């Protein structure tokens, strides 16, 4: 499923409201979240891509119903964008809450699922400078394994 250019811009704006720049020392500021979401939507299954797209539309068009303000998400200031996301994540309607939570999960996975973040929090580096070294060692050990 192909996101349209304006949906890609929405994805970036919403994702950055969810996970603001400067997070974790700014190591992920350079990630192009809109582009990552575009790529994510190209992957199966179709229903996950559809849900992601629906979550973008829901969030972008939510202000009139959720906040009583005749604007789109793009017309809100930073603090109000965050307030809107909080409201959607805490909605009494399961469908709205689940959709917003799915968007949050995707934003976290795309923005924080990055080798620089993993290194910053010391994940997966036990005994290795870089995780890739472990794979290289294992590959070299191919001939030593069972049987």
């Amino acid at each position, binding site marked *: 499923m192909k996101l349209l250019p304006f949906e890609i811009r929405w994805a970036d704006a919403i994702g950055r*409201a*969810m*996970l*603001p720049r400067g*997070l*974790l020392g700014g190591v992920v500021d350079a990630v192009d979240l809109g582009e990552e979401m575009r790529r994510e939507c190209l*992957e*199966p*299954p179709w*229903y*996950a891509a559809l849900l992601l797209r629906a979550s973008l539309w829901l969030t972008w068009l939510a202000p009139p119903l959720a906040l009583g303000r005749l604007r789109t998400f793009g017309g809100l200031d*930073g603090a109000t*964008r*965050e307030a809107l*996301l*909080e409201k959607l*994540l*805490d909605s009494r309607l*399961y469908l709205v*809450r*689940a959709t917003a*939570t799915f968007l*949050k*999960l995707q934003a*976290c*996975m*795309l*923005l*924080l*699922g*990055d*080798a620089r*973040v*993993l290194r910053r*929090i*010391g*994940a*997966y*580096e*036990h*005994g*290795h400078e870089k*995780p*890739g070294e*472990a*794979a*290289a*060692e*294992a*590959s070299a*050990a*191919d001939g030593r*394994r*069972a*049987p």
Partner: protein
Amino acid sequence: MTPGFFDARTDGLEGVEADFVVVGSGAGGGAAARALTRGGARVVVLEEGPRVPTRELGETARGSMATLFRNQGKQTAFGRATTPLLQARCVGGGTLVNSAIVWRVPEHVLADWHARFGLADGLPATALDAAYARIEEEMSVRAVVEGVTAGRQDSLMRDGAARARLEGRFLHRNERGCRGSGRCLHGCPHEAKQSTAVNYLPRSVADGAAVYSNAAVERVVIERGRAVAVTGRTAAGAVGPRRPWRVTARRAVIVAASAVQSPNLLRRSGVRGAHLGEHFMIHPGTGVIGIYPAPVGAWTGASQGFEVLGLRDSLGVKLESINVPPEVTAARFPGAGRRLAPYLERLDHIATWAVAVRAEAEGRIRPSRLFGDHVRYDLTARDLDRVRRGMKHLAEMHFLAGATEVVSSVYGLPEVLRSPDELGVFDSAPLDARAYTLVASHLFGGCRAGRDPRASVVDPRLKVHGVEGLHVMDASVMPTNTGVNPQHGIMAVATVAAERLL
């Protein structure tokens, strides 16, 4: 038939014949192939997913899910709530991406299978014990060791459990040379975890088996009441168009495609029965995050290192430490933007412990044009009560281990608890699956085994009722869930059933 590992897209499958055709390369398929080749049979193993070289395993959840998991890890069970349903789709199946936890099927569960489903002849305790012993030796089963493969979050869980007076132990896992890299769920980067991809399948190949990846089986060919072949198409990919193929089984077809895919494969093959695709069971699980004053480094050490057993028989729950990937954990913290950010800055101060419930609920599996496999599943109120009681125990253990905050992750409850005095909120947590963030990982049923053909799909020797030469050897035959991690039980059941075919 030439022994080895092959890619169906490039090597082709047309004209391949074997004594036994095994569909699936995970715990069931790998163990069946091992037992059959050890007995001298010619075996071909067909795996729908790719064979991923160790050096190409991802270091992020997204990369691993894209490569190793069905539907990129986004498969879902539908019901009152939608529940992520994790299934591997690669050579090695679930054994490549699980935490290598080893548990024999508990005696009381096996006794129930014998008494209610008549499985004593097909799966006697003595035969299963012999199979367990062999697998444990070959797959190198050992306990997690503090200071070596245990992480700090495992030690914290041990402390919390001891102070709560709950019995626990460091997990027993099948590994050889684990370095505690914390990447079990991404596929072990050191090949220390003894998945079928690094142990039983290479052993089978050494004994003459051929293992084909990217070989999705669409149907079992049944002629005059006997399974004689399987047909399918090579998986879509960069290497040429999808091509149809047929692989002939001289003696039998063994379906070991998982609790979701096996019943649907039988149905697509013309097998019918009131219980096919029914009695689908899971161990729903959810995590409780504790935030500690000092760094925990939860992603160092085995992905899972400690378990609490004290509530297994009384409450029907098992508690385990687990290092959920940080980018997934991040979404469990409250809020968005500036309220979320401070939690993410403390990612290295958290420990995540999970409750897995031996749920009584039963779901349904059906093929679907829209979803491929459609899973319908709804937890009962009793199951949800166990979930919330298990979560309360975990939260209490976190505080006893020194956590200053506990993230509840239950809709309707305070997002963060800051004192043990608040634990009572779990008692009023809603008995509604939509309030929880649950994941289904251990899957059972759908091709239930039993003596009575009117109440089961396969007989006690795991042969499909009414069809010769067609056997099912995976968790789908288990008539109930087990309350423990299923890999070892699946392997033993498949081993016993496969040895009978020789």
